[in-house]
C-alpha cells in the first residue's frame, strides 16, 4: 500500500461508501463522542485559543528554520551513535531500509503505527523481500490481518469496522473462538502480538516529533506497543516525515498536549516514549543499532509555497472528526491514506492533481476543520487555494464551467446585464415553475432540483419594491 489506496474514481468511491450504513453510523458516533471529549479537554486546560496560537508559532518557527533543526537533530543523534539517512523520495527511503534488512538477514519485523511508512509503501517492499512484517497497533493489526484493508482514519485506522467484522477476521486468521466483546478481542490480539515481540529482528516505528536538541524521537501511543517495538528488537529503525520535528523538549511538551487533547480528548495518552539512539554501555535494554530515516517525498516542494502551513500538521485528526463531508463518505472515499480535510489538502500536494483533483472540492468550505485544528492550519482556505490553482494555474476546470464563470464575471460587474438578467429571470423560469416552485430545473439547476426544490425567481425583485418604497417614503 502506498499513499494512494485505490484506482476508482472519487465519485464511484463516494457512492459505494455511502451505501455502507455501518461505516456511516460508526463515523457519526465517533465524531460526536470525540467532539465532546475534545471540547471538554480544551476547556479543562483553559485558554485553549492561546495554546493553539502557541502551537501554531512553534510549528511555524520550526518550518521556517527546518534546515537548521534537521541539522541539529542529526548531529545530536549521530553523537549518540545513531545513523541518520535523508531520503529524498519514497524509493530512497525504502531502499535504505531494505539494505538494513538484508544486512541483518532479518526475517521478522515489528512495526508501531506510522503514517509515513504507509505513505511510502514500506510494508509491501519488505514483504517482497520475504520478510514477515507485523503491525502492532491494534487497529493496524486488524487491517493487516484482513488482507491489508486500507486505513480510513489517521488515528483510529479501523474506524470503519465493527466488532463483529473484527471477530470474523480473528476467527478466520487467528483461530479465535471467543465473542465479539472488545476486551476479549483486544486480549487475544495482545497475546498473539506478545509472541511476535520476542522473536522480532527489527523494530520500525514512526515519529510524532523528533527533538532536535537531544537527537531524540518522541512517540505517543495509546497501547504502549511503540515502547515494545523499539525496545525488544536489536535493530531499531525510525521513519519520520521531514517536518515532524521540534527544537526542544519544552515545545515537545506543548505539542504533545495539543495532540492528545485534540486526538482523543485526553490530557496525555497512556504512553509517551522518547528514543535516543542505540543503548549505551550502561543501559541494559534498547537496540544495539539505531537508524533514523528522514523522508522528504514531496515535502520540501511544499515549503515556501502558499501551502506551507499544511506542514504544521501534527496528525491529530481533529479536522477529520468534525468534517461533515467525511461524516457521510468515510475515509476510503478519498483514495488516500490521508482522508478528511487534512487529506484533501495534503494528498493532492504529495500525489498530484492527476489522481486527486476532486478532493479539494469535497468540502463546503464550512470551516469546521480550521476551527478544530490545534495548530491553526487554515484548512478551508487551503482547500480554496487548491481550487484556484486547479482553475487558474493548471487550467483544469471543465470548459462549460469556465464559460459560466466568465459570464458571471461580466454579469456581476455590469449594471445593465445584471438588471436585465434578474428582471427576466421570473419569465424565463415560468415554464419550469409551478406553485412558485421549480422541481425540475434546466441547465445547472438540474443537479439542484434532482434532490430539492428551487424557488421561482421573484415576480417583483427586491430592488423594485425598494424603489417604490423609497418613493412612498419621500412622498409622505
Amino acid at each position, binding site marked *: 500500500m502506498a499513499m494512494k489506496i485505490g484506482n476508482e474514481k472519487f*465519485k464511484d468511491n*463516494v*457512492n459505494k461508501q*455511502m451505501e455502507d450504513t455501518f461505516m456511516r453510523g460508526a463515523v457519526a458516533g465517533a465524531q*460526536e463522542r470525540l467532539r465532546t471529549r475534545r471540547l471538554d479537554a480544551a476547556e479543562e486546560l483553559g485558554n485553549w485559543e492561546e495554546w493553539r496560537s502557541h502551537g501554531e508559532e512553534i510549528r511555524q518557527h520550526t518550518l521556517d528554520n527546518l534546515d537548521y533543526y534537521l541539522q541539529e537533530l542529526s548531529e545530536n543523534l549521530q553523537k549518540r551513535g545513531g545513523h541518520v539517512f535523508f531520503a529524498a523520495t519514497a524509493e530512497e527511503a525504502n531502499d535504505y531500509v531494505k539494505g538494513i534488512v538484508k544486512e541483518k538477514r532479518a526475517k521478522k519485523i515489528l512495526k508501531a503505527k506510522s503514517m509515513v511508512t504507509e505513505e511510502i509503501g514500506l510494508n509491501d517492499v519488505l514483504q517482497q523481500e520475504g520478510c514477515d512484517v507485523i503491525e502492532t497497533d491494534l487497529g493496524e493489526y486488524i487491517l493487516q490481518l484482513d488482507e491489508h484493508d486500507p486505513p480510513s482514519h489517521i488515528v483510529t485506522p479501523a474506524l470503519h469496522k465493527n466488532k463483529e467484522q473484527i471477530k470474523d477476521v480473528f476467527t478466520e486468521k487467528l483461530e479465535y473462538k471467543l465473542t465479539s466483546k472488545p476486551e476479549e478481542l483486544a486480549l487475544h490480539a495482545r497475546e498473539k502480538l506478545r509472541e511476535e515481540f520476542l522473536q522480532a529482528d527489527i523494530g520500525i516505528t514512526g515519529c510524532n516529533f523528533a527533538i532536535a536538541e537531544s537527537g531524540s524521537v518522541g512517540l505517543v501511543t495509546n497501547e504502549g506497543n511503540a515502547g515494545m517495538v523499539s525496545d525488544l528488537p536489536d535493530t531499531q529503525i525510525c521513519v519520520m516525515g521531514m517536518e515532524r520535528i521540534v527544537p526542544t523538549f519544552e515545545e515537545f511538551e506543548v505539542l504533545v498536549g495539543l495532540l492528545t487533547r485534540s486526538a482523543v480528548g485526553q490530557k496525555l495518552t497512556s504512553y509517551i516514549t522518547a528514543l535516543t539512539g542505540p543503548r549505551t554501555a550502561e543501559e541494559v535494554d534498547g537496540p544495539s543499532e539505531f537508524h533514523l530515516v528522514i523522508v522528504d517525498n514531496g515535502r520540501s516542494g511544499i515549503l515556501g509555497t502558499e501551502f506551507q502551513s499544511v506542514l504544521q500538521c501534527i496528525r491529530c485528526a481533529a479536522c477529520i472528526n*468534525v468534517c*461533515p*463531508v467525511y*461524516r*457521510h*463518505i468515510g475515509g476510503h472515499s478519498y483514495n488516500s491514506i490521508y482522508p478528511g480535510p487534512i487529506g484533501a489538502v495534503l494528498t493532492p500536494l504529495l500525489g498530484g492533481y492527476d489522481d486527486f483533483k476532486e478532493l479539494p*472540492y*469535497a*468540502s*463546503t*468550505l*464550512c*470551516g*469546521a476543520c*480550521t476551527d478544530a485544528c490545534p495548530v491553526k492550519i487554515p484548512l478551508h482556505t487551503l482547500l*480554496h487555494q487548491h*481550487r*484556484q*490553482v*486547479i*482553475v*487558474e494555474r493548471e487550467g483544469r*476546470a471543465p470548459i462549460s*464551467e*469556465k464559460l459560466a*464563470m*466568465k459570464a*458571471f*464575471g461580466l*454579469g*456581476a*460587474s455590469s*449594471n445593465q446585464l*445584471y438588471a436585465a438578467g*434578474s428582471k427576466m*429571470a421570473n419569465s424565463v423560469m415560468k415554464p419550469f415553475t409551478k406553485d412558485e*416552485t421549480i*422541481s425540475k430545473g434546466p441547465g*445547472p439547476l438540474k*443537479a*439542484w432540483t434532482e*434532490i*430539492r*426544490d428551487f*424557488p421561482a*425567481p*421573484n415576480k*417583483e*425583485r*427586491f*430592488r423594485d*419594491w*425598494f424603489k417604490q*418604497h*423609497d418613493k412612498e417614503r419621500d412622498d409622505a
Partner: protein
Amino acid sequence: MKVTLFATCIVDMFQSDVGIATVEVLERLGCEIVFPTGQVCCGQPAYNSGYVEDAKKAMKKMIATFEDAEVIVTPSGSCATMFKEYQHVFKDDPVWRPRAERLAEKTYELTEFIVDVLKVEDVGAKLDGIATYHPSCHMTRLLGVKDAPMKLLSHVEGLEMQPLPNAQNCCGFGGTFAVKMGNISEQMVDEKVDSVSETKASYLIGADGGCLMNIGGRMQRRDKPVKVMHIAEVLNSR
C-alpha cells in the same frame, strides 16, 4: 442612523420578503435605509469555485458601489463574510486593498448590527410557536457571530426555541458544492432535515438565504410541514 443595505443577490432575486422585512425592522429601530442600485452579487459563487480573477470583477464593482456608505448591513452572514474577505483577495493590490479594508470595517451582518451597534435585543417581535435555529457556518465560524441571533430570538414573544441536534454541522449547501457534489450534499441536507424534524419545531429559522434555500428546498421535496423563516422575517413578525 443612515444604513446602506447590501441586500444580496439571493434576496434581490428570490427572497424579496427577507429584504422587505430587513428594511422594516431597521426602520422601526430608527434607521434610514439607503439601497445603492449598483449592487450586484458579492462574487462568492465564482470565488469559492476557484475563479478568483472572474470574481474580482464583481468585488471591485461592489467596493465602488458601497465605499461611501457610513455602515453597510446585510441579512446574510455568508455575504458579510465575503465583504470582509475582499481585503485578503486584494492583499497585493496597493489601490484596491485599502479600499477593501475600509469596506470590511463598516460591514455588519443584520443581527450583529442590531445587537452590537444599535444595542437592541428586544425588537418587539411576536410569533407564536416552536422554532429551531440553524447556525450557518460562515456566519458562526468565519464571521464569528454566534450569540446575536439567539439573543434576539429569546426576546420574541410567544416563540419557544428548541435546540437543533448537531447544529454545528454544515447543511450541505456550500454554493456550487450543492450541485458539484450533489450526492454528498443530499446526505448532509437530509441529516439536517431529520435533525429539524426531531425538534418538532414548526419553524426553522436561519440567517443565511443560501442555507435556507437548501434546507427549505429539501424539506419541501420531502413534504415536511416546517416553515422556513429568515431571522429578519421573524423579527418583523408582530
